[in-house]
């Protein structure tokens, strides 16, 4: 992928982030367990930097092929969203999660993330 600025595979987890017009799209696949924590933290940090650089109004996070996410990885999303909340109003960007209804954990975890920041987070099934 030529416009990918992150493309990492660790154990059973892989993530790609790329520029998509004026926004950013990150796709997560596989199993986000204890082996994936550092890769995910790095991905979200780079997405945050790129979103600020581009002045993006939205980032899309595609979880449709993500089998599972543990609480340590979920917390990386909480940290990322907290960092977005800490930005000045005009610099804030929204986060849209693409979810897979057959992965039932996603419905519950994304509900928790949306409740954490319902002005920033949307979920699309």
């Amino acid at each position, binding site marked *: 992928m030529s416009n990918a600025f992150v493309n990492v595979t660790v154990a059973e987890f892989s993530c790609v982030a790329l520029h998509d017009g004026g926004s950013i799209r990150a796709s997560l696949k596989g199993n986000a*367990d204890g*082996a994936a924590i550092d890769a995910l933290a790095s991905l979200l940090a780079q997405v945050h930097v790129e979103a600020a650089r581009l002045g993006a109004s939205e980032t899309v996070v595609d979880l449709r092929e993500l089998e599972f996410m*543990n*609480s*340590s990885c979920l*917390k990386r999303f909480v940290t990322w969203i907290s960092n977005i909340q800490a930005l000045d109003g005009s610099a804030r960007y929204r986060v849209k999660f693409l979810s897979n209804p057959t992965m039932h*954990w996603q419905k*519950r975890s994304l509900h*928790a993330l949306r409740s954490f920041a319902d002005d920033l987070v949307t979920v699309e099934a």
Partner: protein
Amino acid sequence: MLLPYIEMSCRPTVPLVSVVRRFVTEFYKRIVGDTDATSRIALATHELLENAVKYSRDGETRLRIEVDTNSTPHAVRIEMQNRAEPGHLAAIREILDGVATAPDPMAFYQSLMVKTSTRLEGSGLGLARICVEADMKLSYRIDGDSLILTGDAQLYADETESAA
């Protein structure tokens, strides 16, 4: 009727936690027949095992999962036992007492998210996640230096799945 259950003793590692979660998922898919309920059991099992990997004194862990399919709705009990450090016992007590006494468990979970968002090690969310996302009542008891965490839940049918 005799109830099917899983009981295992192991010394889990990070990769093995996912192996056990997948086995538990496949096992209970066949018994419970509801993928949403099975995912709640799997999530709780994964978080409890990771907790043991991080905080067990010697890694030795006993896991038992039983589902009472004679009751309506089915009832599940997950029990995890390992030797734990005193400092960890205090942290567990604080989280579980917090969830148990919170008028709104989701609000308590959100407050933990805020509190732990800058924490570098671990998540501090795993046990509260079991209570809120897996909709499970967690309790603990201490026997010597052993920590026994017990999760109980009713496996109500997922409404969206039933309607499909």
